[in-house]
Structures are given as structure tokens and as C-alpha cells.
């Protein structure tokens, strides 16, 4: 199995097999990242493609500071943020995409939700809430870092995060009520 250095070296020599190998090595994890930032799978594929184009074009600038996986991950997140900037102006910030609510989401407490259900919940969020929630809660960036990445203030990042959490609660509460009403109706 090729090391990261050997893989990079061959990719810089434009070896098609090395390029595919690099893609196959990192694509599953990066697609998982893209699915969290995108509103649907089509968008996730777009972000994935754009991210890997950036990776191949900027590979010559990789300075071997830290693991290659970390560099690839950061590049993909930057691509997702770029996607956020491009799409923000086309969407209303406060609009929840309730059409994506799936009836099969388990109505119990948060701890019983599966990963797929949590992914559906994230996708329901508006793009701004979704991006900041991903960056803070899952990637672990501070509000200061998020502010610098998105071009917003720290306070805006904090308030957006708070609204994202409230929106998640709202989604889960609505789903619980739907399920409860369904049980009451069936018991009659």
C-alpha cells in the first residue's frame, strides 16, 4: 500500500491510477462530510466533486505539516463553506425545509435517533444554521474561527448556533406530536 508521500508524488506526476487511488482513499469520509453540509445528496456530490478538484489542483502546495487526511478534510470544509457563500443569497435564512421531514424519524428522545435520522434532521435546517452547527458542534471550531471563515461576527455565530439547536428541538417536538396523534387516532 502506498504511503501518503508516495501517493502525492505520483499524483503530481499526473499518474491516473494514483489520482484514483487518492480519491478512493478519502472519498467515503469526505462524502460523509459533504452529506452533513448539503441539503440533499445531489448537493453533496457537487461539493465532493468541487472539493476533490481543489485537492488535485492544490496538491503541489501541500506542505507536509500534519497528516494528508487532515489537509484533505480542511480543503473539503472550505469547499462546503464556499458552497454556503454561493447559496446563502438564494435562500431565506429562517425557512425550515419541512418537506424533508421524514415520517419514519423515531419520536423518542434524542438518544434513540439513528445516524440517518440525525442526518435528516440536519438537512432540514436552513443552510446558515446547518453550516454553523456543523462547524461548531461536529468539527469543533470556535465561534471566533467560524466568524473568520464565514465573514460574520462571533455574536452572530453564537446566535445562529442557538437558533440551530432550537430548530432541532422544534423538529423533534413536531415529529413527536405527529406520532402521538397517530397513536391516539389508531387507538380509537
Amino acid at each position: 500500500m502506498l504511503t501518503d508521500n508516495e501517493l502525492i508524488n505520483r499524483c503530481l506526476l499526473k499518474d491516473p491510477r494514483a489520482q484514483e487511488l487518492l480519491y478512493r482513499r478519502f472519498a467515503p469520509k469526505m462524502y460523509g462530510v459533504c452529506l452533513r453540509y448539503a441539503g440533499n445528496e445531489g448537493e453533496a456530490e457537487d461539493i465532493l466533486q468541487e472539493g476533490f478538484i481543489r485537492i488535485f489542483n492544490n496538491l503541489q502546495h501541500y506542505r507536509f505539516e500534519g497528516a494528508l487526511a487532515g489537509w484533505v478534510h480542511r480543503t473539503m470544509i472550505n469547499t462546503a463553506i464556499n458552497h454556503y457563500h454561493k447559496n446563502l443569497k438564494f435562500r431565506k435564512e429562517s425557512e425550515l425545509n419541512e418537506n424533508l421531514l421524514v415520517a419514519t424519524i423515531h419520536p423518542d428522545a434524542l438518544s434513540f435517533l439513528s445516524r440517518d435520522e440525525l442526518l435528516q434532521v440536519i438537512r432540514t435546517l436552513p443552510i446558515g444554521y446547518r453550516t454553523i452547527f456543523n462547524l461548531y458542534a461536529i468539527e469543533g471550531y470556535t465561534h471566533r474561527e467560524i466568524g473568520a471563515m464565514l465573514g460574520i461576527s462571533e455574536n452572530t455565530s453564537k446566535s445562529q448556533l442557538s437558533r440551530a439547536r432550537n430548530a432541532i428541538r422544534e423538529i423533534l417536538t413536531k415529529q413527536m406530536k405527529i406520532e402521538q396523534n397517530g397513536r391516539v387516532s389508531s387507538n380509537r
Partner: protein
Amino acid sequence: MDEYHPIDRKFREAFDGFEQEPPERAWNRLRNHVRLEPAEHDFWSKVIALHRTHPRSVRIAALVTVLLLIVVLTVIRLTSRDYQMIHGSAWAGEERLCRGTAYLFKVDDKILPYDTVRQYQSVPINEKGQYCFPQVEPGRYLLQVSPDETSAHSQTFIPSWFDQRSPKESPKLIEVIDEDLMINLILRQR
């Protein structure tokens, strides 16, 4: 990140290490965008690729090594016995010339016209009337000495070629082969 917020914690734990295989069409679309020219395996392409992939410290070390090698080879070249020394004294009458400049002109028969010379080196003449060309490569030369304008000898003596007793005569050629030469030059009077 807020480790204690239950929502944050739940999502973080759920997506830690999360992977999903993208559809194959994602790679098919990507490969059309990425430059996939056949790899060039010539020597310099590999050197450039290796240069890019090695850490900065390795690249700096390699550069310093190359520079040192160049310096060492240059020193060896300059100190090799391919070069000879031409030295001597310049005389103004019965006195040594006190201030002036000695010039070496190289004769190159490959350049037209065949009597063309070009200035090769110049050195100052010290207070004892002595000059020295330490590194002269093999070839044919003409030697000229010129008194400094501020020197008292410049009033009486003119710039003169080695062994040219009169303006009608050609100066004598100096042939440098494989040994040092000592040549004394006598300036002609005005």
C-alpha cells in the same frame, strides 16, 4: 465546541468517523475535470516532483549542499595548475615606477581581425614598482604598463608595451604555457 450540550454531543458522537461510499458517477464526473495527462517519467519531472514532496528542511539541505559543491569546484578550478602567474617590476629609467597599472591583453587568433586583442586582466603597481597577475590561463598575451596620472613619472614616461623599443616595432608576445613567468618592463620616455 460545547462538550456538555446534549444536542452537540449526540451529533458529534453519531458522525465521528462517519463514512459513506459516494455513487460511482461522482468519480466518473470528477475524472473528466482532473488533468489526467500521461505521466512524464523523464528525469527532470521526477526531480521536480521529488522537490515538491519532500519537507522544506530536506529541500534546504539539498540546496546548501549543491551551493557548497559549486564553491568547492570553483576553488579547485581556480587553484589548479592550469593557471600560471606573471609577475615582475616596471622601470621608469633607473627608478622603479612608483604608481601605475599593468594590463594583460589576450591575443585570440580565432577572432577577426587576427591582430585583435582584448583586455584580459589589470592589476595595480605597488610603491615598489611591482605587479602580479596571479591567475593567468594558458595563451598568448601582450603586457602594457601605464604610469598613474598623479605620478611624477607620468610627466616623463608614456604607457609602454613589453619589449617594444620603438613605435614602429610590434610588442613582444608573451606565451603562457605551464610555468610562472617573471617579466620586467621598461617604460619609454616621451
